[in-house]
């Protein structure tokens, strides 16, 4: 089943099972069912609890904050990740502040879901991956959907906790089939869930045992799918063995599995679609160097998209964004 359908099923199950769940967003009601059809069918099944809103992202997240503090579990869809800037005040100064600044007298478990990323030719303001601006926000958990993580498990986990969550969903994930241990293994790759099987654990994908890998690649979201293809191609075509790690929770990120891998491979390449500079990967690079100074063969490589706007035109968009050929170049360099 494709990711969008799996997510749609998940939202349907959780709103059915949990009376605290309310879903708000622009154009999410039937028959339209959301710009990416993720909420299709839900407003018909749960009228009043799945609600179209005006084009007012700040107010939507604010309303969700009020609902959350009163015991509801609001899930907000922000139609494009580019528009989360319009919720920034609510997320930074309200949603993530309340529990901490009110000394745990309330919780404010708002979930903000947003389709993000390029590759569709939507141009500079409908293609961005802006999550890096949120990664350092205290008391916010940022989760990146991937084809390797079950949305059902992720949402059940998130609903069992009280932290506010930003859930980024790369648009190119929506039509992709879910990847499972079976589908990954059928390609000849080893699939391993690191940690205790928790919904937010890191997935490891590699062609051979870790001890035989020269590079650790850390990627999330749609780039994790691209990176898994790259891992397979490099193994088949160049006998270059790489371990891919895919976290679901990208901030705060669990550094232990990363450290364990890099300690063995001796080099790390981080991959994200956001623009370069002050990126997710720079924090991971810093953490790896801090923990493994002197044990790494190479300095970390942080691979991002170019620090510019995302062009609408197909060829220039593809060149500007991070892509598999850039990943291969970075991995080859890291493998030296």
């Amino acid at each position: 089943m494709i990711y969008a359908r799996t997510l749609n099923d998940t939202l349907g199950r959780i709103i059915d099972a949990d009376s605290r769940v309310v879903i708000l967003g622009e154009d999410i009601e039937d028959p339209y069912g959301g710009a990416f059809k993720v909420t299709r069918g839900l407003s018909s099944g749960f009228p009043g609890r799945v609600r179209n809103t005006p084009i007012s992202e700040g107010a939507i997240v604010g309303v969700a904050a009020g609902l959350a503090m009163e015991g509801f579990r609001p899930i907000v869809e922000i139609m494009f990740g580019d528009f989360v800037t319009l919720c920034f005040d609510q997320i930074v100064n309200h949603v993530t502040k309340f529990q901490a600044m009110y000394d745990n007298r309330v919780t404010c478990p708002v979930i903000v879901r947003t389709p993000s990323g390029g590759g569709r030719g939507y141009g500079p303001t409908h293609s961005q991956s802006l999550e890096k601006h949120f990664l350092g926000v205290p008391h916010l958990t940022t989760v990146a959907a991937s084809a390797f993580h079950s949305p059902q498990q992720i949402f059940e986990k998130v609903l069992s906790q009280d932290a506010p969550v930003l859930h980024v969903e790369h648009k190119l994930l929506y039509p992709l089939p879910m990847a499972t241990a079976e589908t990954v293994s059928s390609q000849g790759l080893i699939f391993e869930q690191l940690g205790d099987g928790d919904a937010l654990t890191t997935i490891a994908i590699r062609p051979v045992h870790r001890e035989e890998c020269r590079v650790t690649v850390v990627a999330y979201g749609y780039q994790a799918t691209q990176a898994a293809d790259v891992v397979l191609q490099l193994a088949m075509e160049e006998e270059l063995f790489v371990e891919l790690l895919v976290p679901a929770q990208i901030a705060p990120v669990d550094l232990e599995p990363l450290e364990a891998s890099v300690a063995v491979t001796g080099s790390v390449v981080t991959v994200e679609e956001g623009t370069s500079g002050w990126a997710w990967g720079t924090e991971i690079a810093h953490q790896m160097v801090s923990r493994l100074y002197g044990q790494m063969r190479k300095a970390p490589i942080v691979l991002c998209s170019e620090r510019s706007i995302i062009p609408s035109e197909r060829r220039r968009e593809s060149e500007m964004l991070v892509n598999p050929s850039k990943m291969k170049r970075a991995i080859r360099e890291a493998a030296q």
Partner: protein
Amino acid sequence: MYFAGPAEAQNGENHAEQRMERIATLKGKQCDAMPPDPRFAGSPGETRAFRFYRQMLSIRRFEETLLDLFDRGLLNGTTHCCIGQEANCVAVMEHLREEDHVFSNHRCHGHYLARTWDALGLLAEIMGKEAGICGGLGGSQHICAPGFKSNGVQGGIVPVAAGIAMAKRLRGIDALSVVFVGDGTLGEGVVYETLNIASLWQLPLLVVCENNEWSQSTPRQSNMWGDVRERFTAFGLPVHEIATTDVLQIDQAAEEAVAAARKASSPRALLIHTYRLCHHSKNDDNRPPQEVEGRWKEEPLVVHGERISSEDRERIRQEVDEAIEELVSSARSLT
């Protein structure tokens, strides 16, 4: 009015100890406000006229005490007093019920006191004490107690209050969500996003707009085009408008606005044209002195004080001053 806790007389001497006990038992849980000190809050037996005078004077003395403590270097950070606007605080809270919710802003002391009369919790909070309402983390502008919250960023509290109203509605609870904003906050776009949603969804939200004529150092005429009232009517909110510092008149307007909002279970605005007598925060007042002086002649305690004999005013003043003195010493003894 709504009394936050048991209304029996509480001696200030015991408050510090009681608060520490309360904090110890409620650590990490929803915290109840302390029982109100009747010398601040008045008692149910007291006439409304006396009680209003006492409550407004208590808020005034509390904030004057804060400014004094700042001057003496005993407080950290900043504060925004509502000196001159006390009548709004007590008149609106008079008509709220326990199940209602109040969201206030940076200028929240008067609202909090009139809502809960937890003066010790508030002073301890502003002093940064662990025994404060929010463990000393929130300070002057970031308060949370049952039925009350405040935040220091302009505008963003309005949708949050609308969300609280929506929660009451979804739960089938007959209650109002009340949010206080100033005229300056009407510059924030999210306010209008919320007025639209509140009307569209018919949320039980009462927006109390205290137009005190100055946003920080800028007169309203330089910040706002057109009429304040129309900002609300444009989104279909009926407006109850009053221009006075007379607590009894505001009391009547608040009673009407609250009753109408309850009856219709839909959004309403209560627009009070008022005046801030003190500086915006601390030592930052560039307004024409003659303008401010003129307003001191019609401030709430002067206007309402004319209805009360000088003996009664003096008696109330002594009781409030005594309670404030005990309050400061109790708060300073807290950890």
